């Protein structure tokens, strides 16, 4: 039996070239080596890959010549026998060898090479980066959708879909994912609202309203009525007017709105105080527009500021407050007789006495009598018992080793104590008669029934100019109505300004308060504007020790503006001598 080998090739134009040849012999060798009967020019094929032979029954036997298998009719195998009449296809690399039986008994082997793309027609496009990258359009859409969802849809949807549209820091009614909308940290005062945008941004597309601010800041004082503000400001420049017109179109409330000055989201920290320019734009020439104003013009603390004025009790015994200009000659009459110079002397009797008492130094200093408030901003009113009495004793009697002391601040009580003091000598109510035994003077049961004339004399003496009360107080009246003038101590002297002693702690008291040279309690020992200007100059005076903006001493919204009428302005009524308790000291 012989094999008829039919190779079918293709020309470049696709035309088939069919070549037939016969192979004599019982074995057909197939492989890459040129010595084979059928040469398969495919590198995937072994040099001697398969041999085909006939078995005794005329069947074709294919055997792998190496340990490499071959594919026959789709199955990988190393050894197969088949009837050539049925046929079969041996696949080697890209070649297929189809076996069939010719009518003349020859076994026909059709060798055919599969089409192979050597030059990839699309390869040119693969030079471009596009073949190695994801589609730009897809990426772009994914990015757009992700950003719009996360930064727009979620916050807007949760804002609109809230059941209870109330501001709340937590819970299901909170707007989700709106932290990404915050343009910056809130000031420290508003830190608690950091995650609660809807507390201020109440309605969509509506600017933050004053009423929202005032819902918390209920007690904020108005700087001035709106109409006076407008007059003081004067006409806007055309540029400002245009800007406010545009702002009005966008729904801003106007130049008087809270948010005009108080910008938020400027970063954690204190809310920035207004600049000097902000105040001076109105106050520099305000009297020209607001003719009835009591305020002097000011635009720079160092160069243009009215003299300081203090709120004092100008008339002895009167609760009425008047303002005096601090020109170095200002006086007040608070009702105490207290020469500062005498008490601060280092050489006189006061100093000697201080030196003898264990709680004082060689001489008195300010802090011996003036105690700071807890916040150390100011000073507590001078208190007789703690600040004066260690020298100015109110002792009037001694029983055994115990001293009896008058109660300070209550004239009626003082009067009663002195009247009831029975050790003062009294004239006997009878003359010539003496009581017997233990009832006589010096006896165990002696009672002095005489008139307490000496006691009344003692009271009158105490309340006189030279008496124990008159030492510090101004006596008033005589006889049964004798008393002392009420005392008014101010803890704050400034109506519109603010002073912090704590901030000036490195200074000596006397550098501002000329107490060591003051011989009269009526001297108002407050510094003048010139004294302040030793250190403080205007905001732009960079070479000054302390360049000072208006906001250093003044607040646009005075915190106690409304509360001023309520709080105690002086010593509580029960501390006032000469006034029966229950009557209003501030009348």
């Amino acid at each position, binding site marked *: 039996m012989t094999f008829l080998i039919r190779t079918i090739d293709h020309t470049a134009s696709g035309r088939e070239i069919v070549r037939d040849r016969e192979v004599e012999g019982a074995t057909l060798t197939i492989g890459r080596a040129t010595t084979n009967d059928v040469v398969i020019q495919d590198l995937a094929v072994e040099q001697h890959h398969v041999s085909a032979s006939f078995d005794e029954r005329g069947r074709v036997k294919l055997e792998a010549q190496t340990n490499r298998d071959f594919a026959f009719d789709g199955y990988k195998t190393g050894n197969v026998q088949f009837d050539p009449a049925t046929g079969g296809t041996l696949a080697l690399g890209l070649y297929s060898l189809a076996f069939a039986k010719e009518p003349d008994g020859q076994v026909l082997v059709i060798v055919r090479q599969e089409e192979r793309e050597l030059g990839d027609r699309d390869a040119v496009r693969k030079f471009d980066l596009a073949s190695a990258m994801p589609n730009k359009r897809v990426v772009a859409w994914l990015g757009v959708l992700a950003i719009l969802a996360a930064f727009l849809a979620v916050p807007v949807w949760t804002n609109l879909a809230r059941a209870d549209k109330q501001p709340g820091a937590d819970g299901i009614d909170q707007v989700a994912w709106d932290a990404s909308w915050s343009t910056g940290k809130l000031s420290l005062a508003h830190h608690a609202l950091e995650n609660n945008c809807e507390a201020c941004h109440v309605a969509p597309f509506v600017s933050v309203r004053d009423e929202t601010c005032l819902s918390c800041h209920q007690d904020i004082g108005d700087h001035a009525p709106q109409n006076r503000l407008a007059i003081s400001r004067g006409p806007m420049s055309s540029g400002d007017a245009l800007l406010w017109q545009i702002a009005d179109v966008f729904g801003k409330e106007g130049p008087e709105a809270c948010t005009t000055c108080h910008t938020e989201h*400027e970063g954690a920290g204190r809310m920035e105080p207004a600049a000097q320019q902000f105040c001076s734009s109105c106050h520099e020439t305000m009297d020209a527009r607001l003719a009835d104003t009591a305020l002097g013009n000011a635009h720079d603390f160092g160069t243009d500021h009215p003299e300081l004025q203090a709120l004092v009790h100008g008339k002895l015994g009167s609760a009425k407050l008047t303002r005096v200009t601090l020109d170095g000659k200002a006086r007040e009459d608070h009702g105490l007789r207290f020469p500062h110079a005498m008490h601060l002397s280092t050489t006189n009797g006061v100093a000697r006495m201080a030196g003898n008492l264990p709680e004082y130094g060689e001489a008195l200093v300010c802090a011996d009598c003036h105690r700071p408030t807890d916040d150390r901003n100011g000073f507590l009113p001078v208190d007789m018992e703690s600040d004066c009495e260690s020298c100015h004793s109110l002792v009037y009697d001694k029983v055994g080793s115990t001293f009896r002391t008058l109660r300070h601040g209550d004239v009626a009580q003082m009067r009663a104590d002195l009247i009831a003091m029975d050790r003062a000598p009294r004239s006997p109510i009878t003359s010539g008669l003496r009581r017997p035994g233990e009832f006589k003077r010096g006896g165990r049961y002696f009672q002095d029934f005489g008139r307490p004339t000496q006691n009344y004399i003692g009271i009158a003496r105490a309340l006189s100019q030279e008496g124990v009360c008159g030492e510090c107080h101004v006596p008033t009246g005589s006889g049964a109505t004798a008393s002392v003038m009420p005392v008014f101590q101010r803890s704050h002297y400034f109506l519109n300004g603010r002073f912090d002693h704590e901030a000036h702690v490195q200074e000596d008291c006397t550098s501002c308060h000329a107490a060591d040279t003051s011989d009269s309690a009526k001297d108002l020992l407050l510094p003048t504007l010139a004294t302040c200007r030793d250190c403080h100059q205007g905001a732009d005076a960079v070479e000054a020790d302390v360049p000072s903006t208006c906001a250093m001493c003044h607040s646009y919204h005075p915190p106690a503006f409304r509360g001023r009428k309520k709080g105690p302005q002086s010593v509580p009524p029960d501390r006032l001598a000469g006034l029966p308790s229950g009557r209003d000291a501030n009348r």
Partner: protein
Amino acid sequence: MASLIGGHDEGETYAEIEQRRSSDHESFLAHRAFFWAKLAAILALFVVATYLLVDVEPRHNGGSWYGYTLGTLGAGLIAWLAWLGIRKRRPTPGSWSLAGWTSAHVYLGLSLAVVGTMHTGFQLGWNVHTLAWVLMMLVILSGAYGVMVYATLPRALSENRRQMTREQMIESLSAIDRQLELAAQPLSREDTDVVVEALEQDVFGAGLVARLRGPGGQDATRRALAHISTGRAYDDDASDLAQQQVRSILGKRSSQIDQIRRQMRTKALLEIWLYIHVPLTFALLAALVAHIISVFYYW
């Protein structure tokens, strides 16, 4: 266009070529004697000057009147700059040439970096507003890179081509492959395997990193070359001649692949910025919409 961005010293021939090219081709960068470059520079300087002069209390931010003005200007610029994507697909409607449009796109796009940054008042944070700014800056930076490579790389591309078209490169590789396949027929199994591996190698299957790395990397062809190396003693080997032939063809194949890879690398460098510029532009437009709506939503 390369010649118009700074000089070059490649020698006489290049100068001549470029001169010839310049005479009949005006780069979009130099369009109308750098009209848009000048305009954009004036705009940027004006914005910087006003930023320094305008007094905003307590400090500059996007929410002042000046900030809103710059924001409006910036948003308008972004919308117009993005419009190039639509404009370039339309063949010259109106009087604006695409070159003029592109020139304006490049220079106004660069000035947008100043407008947008001044709009922020340098108040940046982790929020959608800064996201928009970051995206804007990335788009501008990628665009600047794009202009740079457009000015420099096309020369490298044509130098590498050596008068060959890309089709010719592929055809050359195919021809080499056919030769290689024939030449490798007498080789041993072991040697054939490495040749087959080289033939099956997909030169174009390279990902972004491989493309950017360019030629010279270890691949199947070089491995085959190393395997069938000259170091082997073939004197008594019958297939020595075939091996020599295969070796020489593999060498040709390797340098052909290098040329293709160099081409792909340059193309990748030339095109990569668009994969940042275009998707980020869309992301920027989305962030810009979110930015503007959110600002007025929480007004």
